């Protein structure tokens, strides 16, 4: 009996081993046969499959995509949160020189929150696009300028490129709008949310009928946090300077939460409570999302009919997210990498297709202007509304906040530390010192945290 059990397990182990090793096919070009792409979800894979003409097929479990010439893309996926993705990526990049060709990182993605760390000139982990044979001024001329600045090092050398650009809007429930304001027309609703003061008055109206304006204080963070005047940490410095905008977010959030405009039970984002706030039982009126948020987050969490949500202008223009594609120094797949970057970030037709299929707001100025007035881009989920009408003007006005390599930790930990303050668990000063403790644990080199007066 026991022996049988053991042998079953052994067989299973052996079978699994052979399965994973059996599918290596050889390619004929001088390039490497395996392209390792590091990312935190399957967003990039879906887009690549949709528009990169060389794609042949993807394995059922989503880990390997085979190209027509036999080259395999291996997807290495690790979650973003809590810095896991970056740890794994850093580990791999540090071992890049010693790794076998097929184990090297070839392409990796980064988010706006930490893109700066990887475009760093001295670290030199991402190849300048020029060295790949891409001329940013010519090949990527139609991209929004701020995305190019974001992906460049301090000398202005572009070391990454993105297909998306993430102007934020406000998505609201039509039924709640009708109930409270008597109309669900995006123009009329937008008027009620045109700036923070007006929005506050509107929040009071919503509250009177038993609704929350937003789900949580984390929802509004990006509106403040991505419009900071100076970066969290100046280059070369070890001092964190907390921007006044962040302090405004803290005081406003406290006020809003205490006033009952936010749902107290939703603590932060990306958790079950937040997901539930997007369901039909919820009393939350609106969410602040860029295009990807609507498609990627709101849609799967909505359990009612299509057409229940609509898009309008947010109280303040903002940008949230953006995935940058980098080619790793030491890659043996430069040709493919160049191809992929051009196909995904510099080809208007491809980008428009991504916009149509995945509702991404893509990185093509002329394309997005066309989309704003093209009914083909209307969304069923939004009841036939064309969201690009609202995205496009926001995108024109985005001024990207100055970045630093510490942004992700700062953004994550400040929300975490002040969450206690909002919930009434700690005093304001304690929350401040908790942030200081946590940030210095995360980044040992940080010596001081300065708060604005």
């Amino acid at each position: 009996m026991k022996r049988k059990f053991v042998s079953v397990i052994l067989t299973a182990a052996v079978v699994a081993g052979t399965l994973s090793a059996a599918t290596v096919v050889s390619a004929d070009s001088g390039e490497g046969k395996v392209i390792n792409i590091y990312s935190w979800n399957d967003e990039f894979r879906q887009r690549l499959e949709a528009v990169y003409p060389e794609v042949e097929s993807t394995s059922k479990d989503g880990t390997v995509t085979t190209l027509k010439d036999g080259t395999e893309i291996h997807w290495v996926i690790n979650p973003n949160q809590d810095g896991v993705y970056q740890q794994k990526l850093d580990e791999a990049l540090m071992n890049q020189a010693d790794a076998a060709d097929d184990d090297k990182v070839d392409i990796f993605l980064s988010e706006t929150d930490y893109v700066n760390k990887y475009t760093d000139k001295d670290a030199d982990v991402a190849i300048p696009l020029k060295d790949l044979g891409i001329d940013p001024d010519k090949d990527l001329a139609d991209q929004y300028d701020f995305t190019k600045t974001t992906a460049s090092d301090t000398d202005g050398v572009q070391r990454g490129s993105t297909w998306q650009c993430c102007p934020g809007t406000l998505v609201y429930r039509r039924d709640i709008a009708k109930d409270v304001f008597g109309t669900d027309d995006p123009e009329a609703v937008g008027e009620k949310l045109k700036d923070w003061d007006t929005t506050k008055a509107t929040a009071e109206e919503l509250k009177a009928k038993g609704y929350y304006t937003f789900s949580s204080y984390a929802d509004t963070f990006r509106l403040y946090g991505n419009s900071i005047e100076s970066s969290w940490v100046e280059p070369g410095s070890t001092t964190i300077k907390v921007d006044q905008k962040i302090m405004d977010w803290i005081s406003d959030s406290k006020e809003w939460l205490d006033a009952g405009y936010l749902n107290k039970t939703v603590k932060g984002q990306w958790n079950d409570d937040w997901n539930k706030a997007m369901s039909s039982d919820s009393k939350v009126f609106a969410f602040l999302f860029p295009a990807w948020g609507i498609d990627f987050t709101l849609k799967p969490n909505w359990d009612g009919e299509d057409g229940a949500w609509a898009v309008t202008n947010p109280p303040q223009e903002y940008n949230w997210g953006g995935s940058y594609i980098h080619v790793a120094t030491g890659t043996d797949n430069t040709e493919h990498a160049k191809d992929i970057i051009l196909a995904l970030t510099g080809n208007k037709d491809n980008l428009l297709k991504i916009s149509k299929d995945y509702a991404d707001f893509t990185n093509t100025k002329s394309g997005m202007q066309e989309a704003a007035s093209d009914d083909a881009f209307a969304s069923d989920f939004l009841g036939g509304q064309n969201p690009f009408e609202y995205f496009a003007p926001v995108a024109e006005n985005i001024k990207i906040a100055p970045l630093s390599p510490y942004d992700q930790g700062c953004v994550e930990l400040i929300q975490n530390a002040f969450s206690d303050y909002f919930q009434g668990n700690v005093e304001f000063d304690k929350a401040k010192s908790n942030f200081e403790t946590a940030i210095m644990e995360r980044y040992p080199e940080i010596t001081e945290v300065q708060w604005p007066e």
Partner: protein
Amino acid sequence: MKTNSGKRVMSIFAHIVLILLSFMCLFFFAILLINATHSHAELQKGFSIIPGKHFLDNLRSVANDGSFPMFRGIINSVIVSGCSAALCTYFSSLTAYGIYAYDFKGKKVAFTFIMAILVMPTQVTAMGFLRLITKMGMYDSLLPLIIPSIASPAVFYFMYSYLQSSLPLSLVEAARIDGSGEFHTFNRIVLPIMKPAIAVQAIFTFVGSWNNYFVPALVIQSKNKMTVPILIATLRGADYMNFDMGKIYMMITVAIVPIIIVYLLLSKYIIAGVTLGGVKE
């Protein structure tokens, strides 16, 4: 008479408490199992006690997700736990036998040393351990999760006290007279005698290793080498996974069900084994 009815009241009370405690222990598993049968949309509507129809859907989406290779993780866990249990029990028995049956210089010192390190938390050496295995080229492999189990002071102590109570040295002498080699004696005569103790410790080591999170989380980097606890832990933080709670419940189910099945099959031995450990005296 009075004491009898008092006893009866007490007995009923005891049963009620026991039922409540058992309910508490089973309640969470029941919810887990029920939720694993619901789709994300159903879970969004709030908890429902009636099982849903999405058990297989959820199982399929767990099985087909390459970025969370749950079944690969289970295989890894089985390999690590199985090998650890085997190495740990064999070498602990060997060490215990070495100290119990032989006289040599430094025997006392060796025994005292093992007893002294009995309580040292593994976390204390974690940092140096990590650097060492990196240098030895064992970073991101399953070996450093298995080999160190050769030195398990607690299991040694258990084996030692078991030997004290159940292996008469005369038996060893008799084997020697029969011309049996020392190693042969250990494998053919001593090990079979120690079977109950080995079985119990094998189970505990297996379970302990199956559930171990701290060390694997530091050592393992690549997806296809991850053990179950690391996969489970990444779920807590994963930003995109949370969109399917049904899948999350299913993953937890998949992670703990194998151990529960093994437990239910062997519960008699396991429960007897708990007491073998502490109360040997």
